[in-house]
């Protein structure tokens, strides 16, 4: 499989993730978008790792990313639960305490 195809797939995946993050109203959906973007980055790492047959640094790094993403998901979900408890909603448009 040529590298181009994989990179295009990664880019597409990233864009979809970004679109989800920016457009969806639900906080959990936004988290899913973020996961998508992380995985798009992982895809790129694995793809480039093909050119480093000896040490496979890209794949190792992807493993790290997955681990960190898992941790991030745990923390983010906890925050979302607390936010929900506090505001009685998970709609990001409603949670606009940061406005000036």
């Amino acid at each position: 499989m040529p590298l181009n195809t994989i990179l295009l797939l990664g880019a597409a995946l990233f864009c979809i993730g970004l679109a989800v993050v920016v457009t969806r109203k639900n906080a959990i959906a936004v988290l899913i978008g973020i996961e998508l973007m992380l995985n798009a980055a992982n895809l790129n790492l694995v793809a480039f790792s093909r050119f480093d047959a000896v040490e496979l640094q890209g794949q190792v790094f992807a493993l790290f990313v997955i681990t960190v993403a898992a941790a991030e998901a745990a923390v983010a979900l906890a925050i979302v639960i607390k936010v929900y408890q506090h505001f009685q909603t998970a709609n990001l448009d409603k949670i606009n305490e940061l406005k000036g």
Partner: protein
Amino acid sequence: MIDLNDIISTTEFNPLIYWIIALMAIPLLSFFTTTFLKKIAPVWATLLLGINLSISIYLASQYWDTTGVSIRGNWFSIGDTQLTYSFLIDQLALIMLVVVNFISVLVHFFSMEYMRHDENKSRYFGLLGLFTFSMLGIILFYDLLFIFIFWELVGLSSFLLIGFWFEKKSASLAANKAFIMNRIGDLGFITGLMILYSQFQTFDLEGIKSLTVLSSIEDENWVAEYFKNGELVRNSLDGRWLSAAGIALFCGAVGKSAQFPLQVWLPDAMEGPTPVSALIHAATMVAAGVFMIARIFVILDAQALEVVAVVGAITAFMAAVAAFSQFDIKKVLAYSTISQLGYMVLAMGVGAYTAGLFHLVTHAMFKAGLFLSAGTIIHQLHQLEGKDVNFDPQDMRVMGGLRKYMPVTFICFMICALALAGLPGFSGFLSKDAILLNTAVWIDEKGGGFYFIEVLAFATVLITAFYTFRMIFLVFTGDFRLPKLIPASATLKPLQEGNVFLKLPMVLLAIGSLSIIFGFTMKAENTWFYQLIQDPIFLVPESYAAFNLMDLPHEWFENLHSQVVVISIGLALSGLVIAYFLFKPGAKFSASFAEKREPIGLVGQISFYHWYQNALYEKVILKFIIWKARRIAWFDRVILDGFINFIAKFQVVFAHLIAWFDRNIIDGFVHLTTYTTGRVGQLTRSVQSGNVQAYIMAALAFLILMLIWLLF
């Protein structure tokens, strides 16, 4: 050429300074402590003054034969102007020290009884201490500035003591009058100080005297040349300033020694307690003026001395005339004090330095004695006053026949009165005789219109004897008039002699009024006083100087002496005889005296109202001053206040203008700034929407922009 700094250089240390400090510190201590004491205040104050008297007697015995010890030190310097202090302990100062302290102690002692029932007696004794302190300052210091400082302190303590019973309106008014009259004289004193300082640049009397000797008259100008700090100083004034300086300084003495035309304060000063009158207004403070003339005597020129002599003679005569019709015993004594002070000043004026000072000392003794005797009478009469019995215990109309009730007081009063009248055997005779003799010699030399001084001086002898014996006949002979005037008083306890506190000072002063104290002689020249103090020689430039009496031929004195003695004794005796025929018990004036209200006839009126001098001051000078004050008040109110009000109004208008400018222009800027800031804030706040996704978009957009900028 002489260097000023050499004359007024600091002297070597002399242990005498401790004694001098002690002499002044003890009365001052009395002033500061006595006021806080209650019961023991009189004893404490008297004890301190007793110590002071012992010190002065000790010093007198130690320094009797020396020519004068001078102590000088640097007080402070401003730039290259050096102000010094200096003391001079000479025979004059020693005699004055003893006299002042002696009389002060006796007055303290006397007051222990006299003021026994006064609730403010601690203040009284404190003020006596303050007075003694200031008087000793005048005597001890030999520096005109310091003499002036203590001069003012004496004036202050006199003011406080005259107004001691300040609840009485008349007493506080009398205190004010005395103070203001003294201030008028002091103005002259300050003027004299300024003239002398501008010429000699020192207040030190030694310096002034040394530089006066060296000054000269060139083309009618008074020139003083000397070195100061190594530089030649040449001060030149119009020659008349030399006379002016002397006359100006004499003005100070006119105020303090109650000379014409400022003498009106002294009779009013009798509002104070009688022992105070004895100490201050008869014996010591009023003598300060004469003492001051003695200190500056050698720098007085002929013209100034003529003024001094004329003023003295006029004062002596006027006051003597005023004395012979008064009803108040203290007023008689007050006028006689003025009169005798006039004699002293006259003596100074004719150049009879020693005679004047001699009279000062003898007068201090016999006048203090007279006042204390009068005080005893007043005190004892005061005891008779009760609920139904009200009278003025100083009024001679309620007295009469007191010889029977108070024999000791009578004898003391008699001795002092004989001294006052100038009869042989008593101290006043010696000193008054010396003054009359010197005056007669001076006028023989001077001639011209000055004979009126001699006439006044001899007329005063007659009048003095007259009013003295009038007083004695009215007070001590005949019947006691009080029971007749106020029948209710007849039932009270009889009049008694005073106790030992009142008697002892009187007796001592009466002894001091005997001429035997000064020597067993009829001639003043043979007394020990004349051996100690000689007439000094005038130091002013020759063309301005008066002639020295001692340069006149001695035969003149010899020839005139016998005549003067005979005339003065004759006049005094005729005064006595006239008084006897007019006021002996049962005589014409004596019989109707109790009902008398005010003397009749021109002479009696002039005398009773003291030549209408007070009325003149009130009607003319006071009116003029009030008129002037009104005009000045008008000027103040209309012109000055108008100007100030105009400025105030202008300020208000101007402030309104500025307020408008502030409100509209300055505040406008501020408001514009806040408005702009607010609008900008409103515009930019929409960016901070609080929408997380919008932030992410913004971050993304910015990232893309950065990438574009970095890559292309």
